[in-house]
């Protein structure tokens, strides 16, 4: 069927439904920003962004879509594009930005990068994600560190632990001590995303940054199906033993609450937990709750960067607004505000972190050293290390392993096979 015929048909059907099709052409100076920051401090920060843009004469429609950790938002993004309702920006990060660049739909925001001097102020590791074929098509919002261990000081004291663990053996010993006192040693488990997030620092600690990159960035089958992976999986199993059987569908916030309220000793989680602790009235690094780099990874930094890609606009006004949006997102004022609440640190290395908590300050310092020593690795669990299908394959494999009696050897082999299949999917 030819396009006009199809269209006529669709129109006929609509007319039949006795509904007038009123054209809903978007106001050209209004940009929709698709994201899944629907609640809490992130939602508040998004509202600040909307206000800041309004002051510059740009209407931002905050399309915040809950559900499935962004799954729903991705669905919406894709249907919007099918509808021809191109959004201004969408929350997409990591390697997937390259896939979107490939579609030819993205806008060039080099002008904003130049104005904000991203090349100088934003670390190259982050910049590289934002560029497609040498041009900026996305802007970073934050910089998260994953390899944190959060702990409740009072619980540790009760269990007779004086300092937080510095290596794996200490961690295991401490977990046992807490368990002996009848408290929850480790809050965690739950869905695939949470398991993968816990595995992220465990893998780094076990294999080191080089091996980590071979596995999660290069997807090297030899590295995946290796004794190192088996060892890492064994360690995940050890952690699982100290984790209460937890409810599917329960969120990491609940676990954070267990630590905050002194019901559990430890939680392995990215620094977005900062925001949650603050929400619960407990400042991390303060008297109640402490943060320490995940044992054995003190010099390493697993990073996660949330970013927005920008879509090419038809009108000049739209294009101008897009540049303004990218500039605002990377402006010191917005980044400081946004990251303070989110628990992360700004992508800009040239701003001082006044008012940030001790854990966040530690994060900035360790990023800079890790960057110098090439100990920065992209988080696989947060979709930073590779594109969707292999990431999914890793998460599925870990999920399967964690929730069954599968042996670490079998799990490593199955993981290798899944990743191979997923690689053919690009």
């Amino acid at each position, binding site marked *: 069927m030819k396009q006009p015929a199809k269209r006529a048909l669709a129109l006929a059907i609509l007319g039949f439904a006795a509904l007038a099709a009123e054209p809903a052409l978007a106001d050209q100076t209004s940009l929709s920003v698709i994201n899944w920051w629907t609640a809490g401090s992130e939602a508040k920060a998004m509202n600040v962004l909307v206000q800041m843009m309004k002051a510059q004469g740009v209407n931002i429609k905050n399309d915040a879509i809950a559900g499935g950790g962004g799954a729903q938002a991705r669905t919406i993004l894709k249907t919007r594009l099918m509808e021809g309702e191109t959004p201004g920006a969408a929350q997409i990060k990591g390697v997937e930005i390259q896939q979107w660049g490939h579609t030819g739909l993205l806008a060039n925001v080099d002008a904003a990068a130049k104005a904000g001097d991203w090349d100088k102020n934003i670390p190259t590791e982050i910049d590289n994600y934002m560029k497609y074929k040498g041009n900026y098509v996305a802007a970073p919002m934050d910089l998260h560190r994953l390899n944190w261990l959060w702990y409740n000081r009072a619980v540790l004291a009760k269990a007779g632990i004086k300092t937080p663990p510095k290596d794996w053996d200490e961690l295991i010993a401490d977990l046992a001590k807490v368990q002996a006192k009848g408290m929850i040693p480790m809050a965690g488990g739950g869905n*695939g995303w949470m398991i993968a997030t816990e595995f992220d620092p465990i893998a780094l600690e076990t294999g080191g940054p080089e091996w980590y990159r071979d596995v999660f960035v290069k997807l090297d089958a030899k590295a995946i199906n290796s004794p190192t992976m088996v060892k890492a999986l064994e360690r995940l199993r050890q952690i699982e033993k100290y984790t209460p059987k937890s*409810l599917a569908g329960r969120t990491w916030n609940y676990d954070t609450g267990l630590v905050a309220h002194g019901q559990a000793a430890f939680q392995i989680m990215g620094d977005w937990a900062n925001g949650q602790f603050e929400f619960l009235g407990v400042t991390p690094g303060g008297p109640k709750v402490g943060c320490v780099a995940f044992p054995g990874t003190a010099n390493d930094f697993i990073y996660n960067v949330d970013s927005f890609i920008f879509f090419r606009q038809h009108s000049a006004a739209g294009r101008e607004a897009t540049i303004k949006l990218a500039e605002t997102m990377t402006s010191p004022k917005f980044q400081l505000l946004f990251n303070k609440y989110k628990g992360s640190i700004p992508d800009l290395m040239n701003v001082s972190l006044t008012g940030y908590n001790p854990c966040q300050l530690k994060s900035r310092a360790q990023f800079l050293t890790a960057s110098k020593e090439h100990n920065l690795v992209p988080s696989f669990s947060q979709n930073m290390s590779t594109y969707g299908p292999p990431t999914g394959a890793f998460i599925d494999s870990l999920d399967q392993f964690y929730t069954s009696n599968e042996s670490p050897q079998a799990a490593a082999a199955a993981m290798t096979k*899944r990743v191979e299949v997923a690689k053919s999917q690009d």
Partner: protein
Amino acid sequence: MAHSLMQRVGGKDQVIAGLMLSPTVLAAIFFIYAFILWTVWLSLTRSTILPSNHFIGLANYHDLFGSSRWWRSLSNLGIFGGLYVAISMAIGLLLAILLDQRIRGERLFQVVFLYPMAISAVVTGVAWRWLLDPNFGVQAIVRSLGFTHFQFAWIDDPNFAIYTVVIAAVWQTSGFMMAIFLAGLRGISPDIVKAARIDGAGTLRIYRRVILPNLAPTFFVAFILSAGLAIKAFGLIIALTGGGPGYSTNVPTIFMYVFSFERGEMGVGAASALIMLAIMMVVVVPFVILDARRKV
């Protein structure tokens, strides 16, 4: 079209009838069948984050059936579908028979059994997640009664989580099955029952030998409806277990959604959708054939 309609009985009115029906027919052809064809095409292309026209033959199907997650989804559908259909029909029938005994307060019971139908999957999922949570729900309640070693943590157990989905789904639609069976029971001529009673049959025997065989068409409708609901189940599982723990409660609808939209493997997602459709057809086609036979 108009010409052939003119040939038929109704003259002008028949033409009007054809015209009035045609929008629905066109809508069905376009919004169901053309969309399915489009999905067929998608499943043969290397579509990742967005649809593409890069033809790759059956590679997506190859990947699909090479995926253990997909196989798990299929076997989950088998377990969930089989149990859900059987149990909801059994409970529905039992409740209908009980309500058919000239019960006081029948209207009230009907409403109580039917109301879960009125509640959305999202809400049902949340409510049951609570009830099944070992820390707050049934396990905690029973333990607080003194049975401190009582275990009921299916929802956390990858091998049993799928059964919790069955429980919630049965809760939601057994009342609907009850309504269908009750309607069927009320449709049976009282003369048949009287005749059986005169023949000296007891109540149980009347149900087993006289009434249930007469309910065959009702069983059929109930089966088709519940099988359809089982294959389409999505929101409830998402809200209850999110497809987990792990992917232990994934079913084809969830697999399709995750791969098409979240994972950026649209081609594989499309392939899975078509396999799902094929499963549907296996359920529906016998219905169509039987229906057609009955008319002849």
